[in-house]
């Protein structure tokens, strides 16, 4: 962005929105909108409180466990679907269904099945992230240059070799794209699950703060979550750009 010929650093528009927020907050337009400065000072108070650290730990743990399973199961499943027509026809309808299904509605069922603890939250997180990872890995494999596969076969590659040395790498740009979106969806998954189960992590904090109308606390937690999700997505974006150089030069 340029202003009067000067190049502004990235995201400087955020300052403008922050200012607007602060002004509206100081004007006490709404009880729901405390001034930004008050939110940050509350954040300074609570960030090393026991409840906050525990929430952060529980959320981080379920998030990482959730995406771990989504990646470990999702990528090979997607690659196999891209390679194998039969498997593809068997699984694709389900993947598409879950991809667009309102998974939130499933959380109560998961709670009944797996209890009110971290297990349900991890499974919810995985369910939020895994479908896009499968679909992207599948798409990555399906656009693979046919002659690369012929090349590997002509030199006598075993199916395992072809899988690890050709299919995975050839599909890597798409796979990473899928993982990136999967991570963002997992952030939603982990928060939604916690909100619904509402006795662990940030869900418990949200419940606590909103039921007591502690709006600055409430916003402080939200800002932390948004910042975490944004940072994560940007980091994965950097990683994805590192392999993009060959995505455009594959053929």
């Amino acid at each position: 962005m340029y202003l009067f010929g000067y190049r502004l650093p990235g995201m400087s528009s955020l300052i403008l929105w922050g200012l607007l927020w602060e002004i509206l907050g100081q004007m006490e337009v709404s009880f729901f909108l405390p001034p930004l400065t008050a939110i940050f000072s509350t954040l300074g108070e609570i960030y090393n409180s026991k409840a906050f650290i525990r929430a952060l730990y529980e959320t981080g743990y379920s998030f990482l466990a959730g995406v771990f399973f989504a990646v470990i199961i999702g990528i090979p499943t997607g690659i196999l679907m891209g390679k194998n027509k039969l498997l593809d026809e068997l699984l694709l309808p389900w993947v598409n269904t879950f991809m667009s299904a309102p998974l939130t509605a499933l959380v109560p069922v998961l709670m009944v099945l797996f209890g009110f603890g971290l297990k349900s939250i991890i499974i919810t997180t995985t369910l939020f992230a895994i479908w896009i990872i499968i679909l992207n890995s599948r798409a990555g494999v399906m656009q693979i240059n046919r002659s690369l596969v012929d090349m590997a076969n002509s030199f006598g590659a075993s199916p395992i070799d072809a899988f690890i040395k050709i299919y995975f790498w050839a599909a890597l740009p798409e796979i990473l794209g899928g993982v990136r979106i999967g991570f963002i969806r997992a952030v939603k998954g982990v928060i939604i699950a916690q909100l619904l189960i509402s006795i662990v992590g940030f869900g418990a904090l949200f419940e606590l703060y909103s039921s007591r109308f502690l709006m600055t606390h409430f916003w402080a937690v939200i800002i932390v979550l948004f910042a975490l999700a944004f940072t994560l997505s940007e980091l994965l974006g950097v990683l994805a750009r590192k392999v993009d150089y060959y995505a455009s030069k594959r053929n």
Partner: protein
Amino acid sequence: MSNDQIENAVTVKNVYKNYGDVEALRDLSLEFPKGQLTSLLGPSGCGKTTLLKIIAGLLPATQGEVLVNGQPVNKPGPDRAFVFQDFALMPWASVIRNVAFGLELRGVNKSERESIATKYIKDVGLTGFEHSFPHELSGGMRQRVGLARALSVDSPVLLMDEPFSAVDEQTRRKFQEDLLNLVKNENKTFIFVTHSIEEAVYVSDQVALLLPRPSRVSEIIKPSSFKNKDINSIRKDSEYLDTVERIWKSLRSYVE
């Protein structure tokens, strides 16, 4: 008969290939003499790449058999190496890993396969580019990598699918000269698919003219007199020019 098997590195016997109702190859038989370069030449759609892939074992024949050194084959093997039209290099791997990839798949250990690869990288004139990536190379250099990869597995039969069609004209001429030297110096059998009449006549010991609808070998031409001449005078040789003209006369009716 046994003499015949020694003379021919590859024999294609009564091969049929159908794609559903479409007949790609019908009762095609062809012999590829050992140590020579045979071109498969014909208009597009005549099944020359299909035939090459059947010989490579990448496509199954519907009927008929392919013998390599007298042994029937139906899948890829270490006796054949393939050079691809679009190079088929792994964009995520360096030149040396690409060249050594055939050996890597055969379980040759890293230091050994890299020393072999280094030798062939030198042979194709790419010394200094070992650690470059394919996207940093020109089309001609990429095909040199593809060629080095095929040579490094030291197969007696080299299958080349329009290997020079994706490089510019100057590079292409240089490649053709290099190929003539390669055939002379390496004791290998080359099967070379092309749609360029000049290229086929220039590089081949034997040109198999394939015609479509239904695909068949219509003629086998063995240019002889200019083969031992200096590389630079081949294109002026009268037999060369006559052969090109003769093939064009056979083919022109198939060009709309």
